[in-house]
């Protein structure tokens, strides 16, 4: 059932079947049939790469709309720390957080500080837990989904620690419940997100029933109104300073920089992530403790719903870390104590969600694999995509799975046509000779 909702939707009115999405999809989850792209939900990992390339803007990231929040008595915006890198180099995080309160949210709450707490919790987990190495960061929802769909062997390597946005939302809600005497469900926590994948992890958190967050709004949607507020503001800030190494989380290496453990690596971009996952599956990399993993090649500052160029944004994050990162925002011993009380633990299991096999019955699956190979051998193997499948391999797989006709392959059709016209040509020649001799 969870497969029915993905972080993107294809607007078939706008789609002209130009195949950019199909070619870029890292899990071959898109087919183009009758000039329209269709999404194979079971293969999609919510990475959002298709959103970036669609020339018709027909791939719609799923986020909430402001009207969804009218049911709450009190709303709190929780901006991804990426948000702090979107507005000029001299606009500090606390000014940005304050500005969020002027565009309609009742309050705004920093997430970077929770990133610092989570980093301390990860360190504790690494020190005290002997589970199989390397441990994989579960904070990019597309990475978690990639493991569910393609690498179910590695589910136990995903570290069972709550994400900073969840920790922050829980804190924010509890504070306001106490302060204002509200019930939990009367408070809406909205994540200002750099990517559509976060929507999925809020709607269907992989290890628990409900998220502490109630929706997402994209950075790009909120950006214009915030720029307006910022241009009028005279540097008003919220009372508390925003500081700590957690501010560096949205860039490649940001998580590892918060850890004391050695033998940690940071990887970004699905190509490289896949290569590393293949190696772990082969029993390698056991000497690595922790892998920070991002599906976007420039990590979260390069999310599909951001505004600023990811490299400029990265520079700004580094600048902010230099300025505000050296003073921790959390008391290490207090966080350790909370860790002991399972404040950061996620106890639920993540279930595998592999793509359906060629057949549920192994004998029939093997038979279909042979058929697939036979079909594949006939194909041109140039992955032109003209058939509407991203590669000759997927075309062969679709053919045996749901009977896509071989005639869809333009090369096979051409060959047939040539044979046909060739025969016709021979017949005409034969007859014309007969005519001449008589």
């Amino acid at each position, binding site marked *: 059932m969870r497969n029915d909702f993905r972080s993107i939707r294809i607007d078939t009115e706008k789609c002209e079947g130009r195949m950019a999405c199909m070619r870029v999809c890292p899990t071959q989850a898109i087919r183009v049939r009758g000039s329209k792209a269709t999404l194979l939900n079971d293969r999609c990992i919510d990475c959002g790469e298709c959103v970036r390339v669609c020339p018709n803007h027909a791939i719609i990231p799923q986020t909430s709309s402001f009207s969804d929040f009218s049911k709450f008595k009190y709303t709190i915006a929780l901006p991804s720390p990426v948000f702090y890198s979107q507005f000029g180099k001299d606009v500090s995080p606390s000014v940005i957080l304050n500005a969020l309160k002027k565009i309609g949210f009742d309050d705004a709450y920093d997430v970077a500080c929770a990133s610092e707490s989570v980093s301390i919790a990860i360190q504790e987990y690494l020190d005290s837990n002997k589970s199989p190495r390397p441990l994989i960061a579960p904070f990019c929802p597309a990475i978690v989904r990639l493991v569910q769909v393609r690498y179910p062997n590695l589910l136990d390597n995903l570290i069972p620690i709550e994400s900073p946005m969840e920790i922050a939302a829980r804190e924010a809600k509890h504070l306001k419940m106490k302060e204002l005497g509200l019930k939990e469900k009367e408070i809406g926590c909205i994540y200002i997100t750099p990517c559509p994948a976060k929507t999925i992890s809020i709607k269907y958190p992989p290890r628990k029933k409900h998220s502490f967050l109630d929706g997402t709004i994209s950075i790009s949607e909120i950006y214009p109104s915030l720029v307006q507020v910022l241009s009028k503001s005279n540097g008003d800030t919220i009372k508390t300073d925003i500081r700590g190494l957690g501010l560096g989380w949205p860039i490649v290496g940001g998580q590892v920089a918060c850890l004391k453990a050695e033998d940690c690596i940071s990887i970004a971009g699905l190509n490289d992530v896949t290569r590393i996952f293949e190696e772990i599956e*082969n*029993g390698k990399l056991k000497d690595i403790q922790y892998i920070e993993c991002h599906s976007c090649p420039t990590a979260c500052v390069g999310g599909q719903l951001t505004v600023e160029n990811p490299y400029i944004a990265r520079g700004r994050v580094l600048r902010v870390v230099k300025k505000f990162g050296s003073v921790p925002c959390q008391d290490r011993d207090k966080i350790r104590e909370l860790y002991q009380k399972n404040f950061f633990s996620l106890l639920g299991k993540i279930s595998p969600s*592999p793509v359906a096999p060629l057949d549920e019955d*192994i004998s029939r699956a093997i038979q279909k694999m042979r058929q697939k*190979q036979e079909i594949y051998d006939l194909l041109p193997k140039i992955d032109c995509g003209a058939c509407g499948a991203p590669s000759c391999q997927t075309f062969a797989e679709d053919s045996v799975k749901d009977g896509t006709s071989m005639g869809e392959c333009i090369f096979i059709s051409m060959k047939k046509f040539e044979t046909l016209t060739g025969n016709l040509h021979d017949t005409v020649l034969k007859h014309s000779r007969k005519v001449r001799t008589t």
Partner: protein
Amino acid sequence: MDKAFSQIYKIQGGNIYNAGKASTEIKSILKQLGINSFIIRRVAIAAYEAEMNVVMYAKHATMTFEVTPKQINIIVEDEGPGIADVSLAMQEGYSTATPEMREMGFGAGMGLPNIKRNSDSFKIESVVGKGIKLEIKININ
């Protein structure tokens, strides 16, 4: 054996660039067949170690991969120096890897024992100066 699916992979010795390609393809096939992920992991480790042995030590090899409804069979026949003392090579921690190979993270001396540990049946034949033949069987149920 009309109930089997088989593939033959050529592995080039010394070619680190393509190393691991056959095991990656094998994994992909097993996933499409819906084989249990615990079994896939065992096959992955065994196939990868066998492939790496060829890359590190032999000239070239043929890897025959076959899957039946009951079993996965991998036969690797290489042309290379062979192993003089097979029982020694089967000991955990024994390795003839050069310092360069160790630099790259290989040569922990666990290759052959690791393959055996992950197989249900494992056979090795070696002729010094000619090559090695490995026969790996992993049950599906």
